[in-house]
């Protein structure tokens, strides 16, 4: 062993090396209460979404009782305008609304993410064209565009997913492109390029591992946005169609009860808000951790 530069700064030598899993666990325990709330919410909703058929007393679309029945023993949250059990519909709504939002966000990420990565690497005409196309698509407010496209193509679930995913992919394109560009200008990327590495390796092994943090955060945020948008579209009657149980349309269907001072119709809306809030708290904490700055968000 030779000269003094061998010994790393004191702080590093003293810290015991832990596995990644151990580190992750410690971080979770240290998290603020808001983040823990978020994790709890997500786990609960996920559970409900997956196991809905086993948790509900009745079936999703079955008419089981009188219309607009009050909260009681037989129907815990009463019945809706057609006589279906509210609690059942609420639980199935988790599966439908959350599930569809999740799939849509995933699809958007695949489309936007791949385009963004390629754009960062192939700066040149590919990037120019892609960016201009995205600029134009983003020039139209998303809800309006969605309404338009849904008018044209109809409102079946696959169409809904594709339309929203394509529109949202534009935002993801921009974010992925921006963070990828930050990596592309670094020396290690240039070194890989000079080595002769192919596009696949450059994307998957050089860029992707270094952008997972911002992309994860973005996933959370986009999920919230997509989720709210689908709920809004369904509320307007242009999203998920009846008789499928969906939180947005359920609010609309039963809105008349509000004039009688009944809060039942608002329950699906509250369910929406809680999930979004939970995800937002989690993303907030995540960003705070990964930015690693001394202060503030």
């Amino acid at each position, binding site marked *: 062993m030779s000269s003094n530069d061998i010994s790393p700064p004191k702080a590093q030598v003293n810290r015991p090396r832990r596995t990644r899993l151990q580190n992750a666990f410690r971080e979770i325990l240290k998290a603020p209460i808001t983040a823990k709330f978020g994790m709890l919410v997500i786990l609960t909703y996920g559970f409900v979404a997956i196991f809905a058929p086993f948790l509900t007393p009745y079936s999703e679309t079955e008419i089981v009782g009188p219309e607009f029945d009050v909260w009681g023993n037989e129907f815990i949250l009463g019945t809706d305008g057609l006589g279906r059990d509210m609690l059942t519909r609420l639980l199935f709504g988790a599966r439908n609304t959350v599930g569809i939002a999740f799939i849509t966000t995933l699809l958007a990420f695949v489309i936007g993410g791949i385009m963004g990565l390629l754009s960062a690497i192939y700066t040149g005409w590919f990037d120019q064209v892609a960016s201009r196309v995205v600029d134009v698509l983003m020039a139209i407010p998303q809800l309006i565009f969605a309404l338009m496209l849904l008018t044209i193509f109809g409102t079946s679930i696959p169409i809904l997913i594709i339309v929203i995913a394509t529109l949202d992919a534009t935002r993801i394109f921009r974010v992925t492109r921006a963070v990828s560009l930050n990596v592309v200008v670094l*020396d290690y990327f240039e070194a890989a390029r000079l080595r002769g590495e192919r596009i696949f390796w450059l994307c998957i092994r050089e860029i992707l591992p270094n952008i997972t943090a911002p992309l994860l955060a973005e996933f959370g945020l986009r999920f919230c946005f997509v989720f709210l948008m689908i709920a809004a579209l369904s509320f307007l009657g242009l999203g998920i169609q009846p008789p499928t149980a969906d939180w947005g349309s359920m609010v609309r269907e039963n809105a008349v009860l509000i004039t009688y001072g009944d809060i039942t119709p608002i329950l699906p809306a509250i369910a929406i808000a809680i999930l979004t809030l939970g995800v937002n708290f989690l993303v907030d904490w995540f960003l705070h951790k990964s930015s690693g700055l001394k202060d503030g968000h």
Partner: protein
Amino acid sequence: MNDPLLEIRNLQIDGESDEIWHEIIKGIDLHLDRGEVLGLIGESGAGKSTLGLAAMNFCRPGCRIREGSIRFDDQELTEQSELTLRKLRGVRIAYVAQSAAASFNPAHQLIDQFSEIPVVHGVKSRREAEKDAKDLYGRVLLPDPDGIGYRYPHQVSGGQLQRAMTAMALSCRPDLIIFDEPTTALDVTTQIEVLTTIRDIVREFNTAAIYISHDLAVVAQMADRIMVLRYGELVEEATTREMMSSPKMEYTKSLWAVRSFKKEAETVASAMSPVVKVDNVTAGYGSEDILKEVSFEIHRGQTVAIVGESGSGKSTAARVITGLLPPRLGDIQLNGKILPKSFKARNKEQLRHVQMIYQMADTALNPRQRIRNIIGRPLSFYLGLTGKQKEARIRELLSLIELEPDLYIDRFPDELSGGQKQRVSIARALAAEPEFIICDEVTSALDQLVAEGILRLLDRLQREFNLAYMFITHDLATVKAIADNVVVMLQGKIVEQGSKTEIFSPPHHDYTELLLSSVPEMDPDWLNELIAHREKHGVMSSTSIS
């Protein structure tokens, strides 16, 4: 004057990172008389800036002063209210930041930013302040002193901004100015002008100063007394002349390290054809040419140093050789055969033989890859090694770069120090078994000791594997240490090239002369002599030579 201007006792400052507090300054005493210039020397992370700012009881966010006393002109600063401290800052103690470009507000004119200090503190009226500004701008030798104040920061050059900042610090005639690495970001030739200005003006106004730098030679020109810091502690303190002539501590002596490193016996340049030949290359981006008709060659076992300041084109030359920037005219030859201009058109063999090591080790290694994979990839990609063979070779390379294989093979880059990361970069280049390696300012971001270690390693590897190096640098001390041949560049053209002894002994091209003489020597009288010499011969700046 008996009583000191500034007296710091047992100062302890903590810094926070990752929600843990650790010590940055571990109990330092500092003492400064009126009109005295104190130099603070240390490597990055030694705590010099923190100490300097503590002189006005200022802490950056994320730091706190845990203990200690700071007496300024018989006032205990740690006990004063924020209001009192505020009244002191800018008026009696001023600060000149490292980056003038970032420290001037882009939205206001220079003169506004000057005047607000005396005006807001009630020392002068607006008119008086502006008049004073113009006068000071003249004294710091800024061009057009009456008009330059009305410019915005982005309209003024770096060296000029630094001087404007010095003038601004003097606006209320403070008792103490803290200069925080004021010339580090400047070119060597611009540095001279700024150093002279600062020294003269501090003497003229009899201001006390704390001069912070990592460059001992620079501090030797400016300070009466020097304090050497390391890891937040004082290593040695002495008057300048004493320290320069007979440093006591090992660490202090090591600050001469790079300058004292001498390459082993010069390898004879072989008469064989060169590994790399740059043949009459002209290259640039768009319509502007950055390199103009550049030609030089490098042989196996030889190091050619490409020297120049920012904008000289030395980095561009590297980009052309690696194929990142296809030249407009001319070509690059590898072992006599012309290489395709763009790296995309070259085959694996051609790419393998031209390797590069980068300046910033932090960005040269993929933070999400283990050392094993960083070094292993070239092995599998170029040489097709797999399994046990590959593993063995990785360990071999780690030993070559003097890192214990078992300890480091599975680590991530952020678990290594700067010097260690640079060694891994070297291993990565070596893994490809190239003939030619470009070292792009590889020691410029490292501290003296560490840099010396890297240079030694590179030298040993060169002799062992008969490698050809192209060493890009702006630091002449490094050139003296490792080069066989030198190429001096200015604004895209080669000004002079030849063997090291040829270049370093006169007669020189004017620019080479300027460059060589601008490098601060470890002699306290160097600056004085240089100024006298230049005034006599009428050479002032690099812009006058083209």
